[in-house]
């Protein structure tokens, strides 16, 4: 049998040399971005830590109350209060920052891509398989190439989070635009609307609830990825979990895990309601 074995395709080598090539030629650029982004992140965390925790808790609770009703407001207050009490305030803020920055970037890139996919058939054919790839590739794999480009730490974490969490934003933006009823499009056409007028006056406004559902999904995926990204030094609550794994401290691990669940629930409720409120 061994005589007839087909030689293995050197796929891994190809990818390595491809990545090497890109590292050599583009790393200076990504490193520069990395440096700036790192500063932004540090500023946000500093900003959040500048206020005493109770002020931040009150702000978030009021926001929850206003957006999603009294129950969510009370839950936010109790949940964040518990995190403070568990001495997890700083990692929570760090994780929150990573999630928000990653989500912001994901929307910044994902929204135009979603619009493009909805309006152009060619773009759709290119973007959809790319997203299948992005979503099904095990999340850990993204961590490996992130390091040569962005170095260890938050920025690499955000990059891999971005790749992993962006697809829902793209998919649901595309879906939201495509599901605008054909007869409304026809009406807009009959009055002589240009493509841009149609997009901004009809398609995007009607797609807002769907797009917000996509952003909600992006936030949830970002939160789960931020934890995984602790392996490359992202810190935050994921860092707590990662330390607990290494030291086999079940109690500490669950404590940080519960903190992540609470943060997830708060972010989920708030982001769900933002779209409906408008």
């Amino acid at each position: 049998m061994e005589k007839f074995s087909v030689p293995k395709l050197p796929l891994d080598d190809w990818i390595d040399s491809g990545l090497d090539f890109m590292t050599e030629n583009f790393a200076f650029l990504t490193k520069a971005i990395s440096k700036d982004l790192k500063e932004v992140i540090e500023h946000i965390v500093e900003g959040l830590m500048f206020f005493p925790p109770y002020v931040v808790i009150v702000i978030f609770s009021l926001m929850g109350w206003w957006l999603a009703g009294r129950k969510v407001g009370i839950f936010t207050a109790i949940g964040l209060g518990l995190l403070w009490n568990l001495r997890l305030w700083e990692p929570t803020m760090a994780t929150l920052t990573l999630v928000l920055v990653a989500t912001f970037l994901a929307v910044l890139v994902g929204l135009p891509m979603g619009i493009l996919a909805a309006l152009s058939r060619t773009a759709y054919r290119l973007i959809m398989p790319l997203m299948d790839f992005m979503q099904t590739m095990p999340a850990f794999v993204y961590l490996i190439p992130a390091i040569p480009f962005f170095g260890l730490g938050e920025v690499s974490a955000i990059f891999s989070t971005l790749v992993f969490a962006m697809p829902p934003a793209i998919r649901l933006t595309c879906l939201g635009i495509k599901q605008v009823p054909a007869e409304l499009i026809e009406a807009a056409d009959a009055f002589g609307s240009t493509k841009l007028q149609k997009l901004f006056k009809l398609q995007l406004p009607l797609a807002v609830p769907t797009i917000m559902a996509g952003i909600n999904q992006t936030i949830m995926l970002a939160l789960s990825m931020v934890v995984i990204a602790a392996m490359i030094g992202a810190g935050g609550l994921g860092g707590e979990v990662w330390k607990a794994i290494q030291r086999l401290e079940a109690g500490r691990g669950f404590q940080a895990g519960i903190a992540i669940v609470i943060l997830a629930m708060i972010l989920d409720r708030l982001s769900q309601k933002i779209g409906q409120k408008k």
Partner: protein
Amino acid sequence: MEKISAVNLTKIFGPHPERALKLLSQGTSKDDIFNQTGQAVGLADVSFEVPEGEILVVMGLSGSGKSTLIRSINRLIEPTSGQIFIDGEDITTLDHDELLELRRHKFGMVFQHFALFPHRNILNNVEYGLEIQKVDKELRQEKARDALKLVGLEGWEDAKPSQLSGGMQQRVGLARALAVDPDILLMDEAFSALDPLIRGDMQNELNSLQDRMKKTILFITHDLDEALKIGNRVVLMKDGQVVQVGTPEEILMAPANDYVRRFVENVDKSKVLTAKSVLTQARVVAYPDDNPRTVLDKMNSECLSGILVVKHDDNTLQGMVQVKAASAAVERGDKSIASLIQEKVPTVTSTAPLTTLISILVEWPWQVPVVDEERQLQGVIVYSGVLAALAKRENI
């Protein structure tokens, strides 16, 4: 001047229309073309004109190509071949930007399911057409309010479409189309989704709006009664082809073939036919200076119990003289019938529907004079003429 003129419009749905076009020109039927080539024939060599200010109704069952036709006129659907002239300009050659300009200024379109924008309030819906023309906000909202007033929806500006009933939503649809002050209204089954009572109201309202506005209207419907009620002329379509073009009365009284005949069989003719189609020339009339003896002779010769009196020089109606009065005058030896004329006579115009004539004839046993605006006698309506028209099923 023809406002819209369609010349040999053909639409083939499918990626390779060439073979279908060739088969079509050889007279192959729609079904055979589909079976042989997989291409669907939407319109086959359709030509018609709409003069300025006319309501042309395109009537056909589903699949007849009427929706394709109306969308071809503003090129929401690109015709495969043929030409469309608007004000004498061939619009099939316009580029994208020129086409947008044309749609913005020449056309207003009203849709079967209203197609109002759900995220905009009523005022913002109505101003849409002006908004995309980049008309100044104040001016366009003023025009939008005027259009809403025209359709009787003042005070609803801030409501959302979902808060309105179907009839009101379609009024908004109409206002949205009218707000841009288009020359041409394209109405695609505009009233078909409304319940019958509201539909009737809207039809009447469209007719009265049209009396004031004098737009050129292309109206699509699958309802023959609606077509006959609204249309100045009607285009009947089947399988993408025009079966008959004519006034409602022509279609009712002279159906082009069995297909049309089967359609018109169940129409209530008394609502569609007008005095014009049943009037007969008055065989005898009297003049005010006639001798009573002469008048009596005229009546006897036609077996009439009353005779209409008109002025000698301009044929204007003066009234009527009854046979009893004329005989009495003869016995008295009067010189003329001038004193016998009874002026109170019901009159109708040539556009009065048969239903009106019937209700007059029930009360009035004599001829009913048909007059124009100057009271000149056009003809007379007699009971037997009305009955004959209603009973008529075949060509005369």
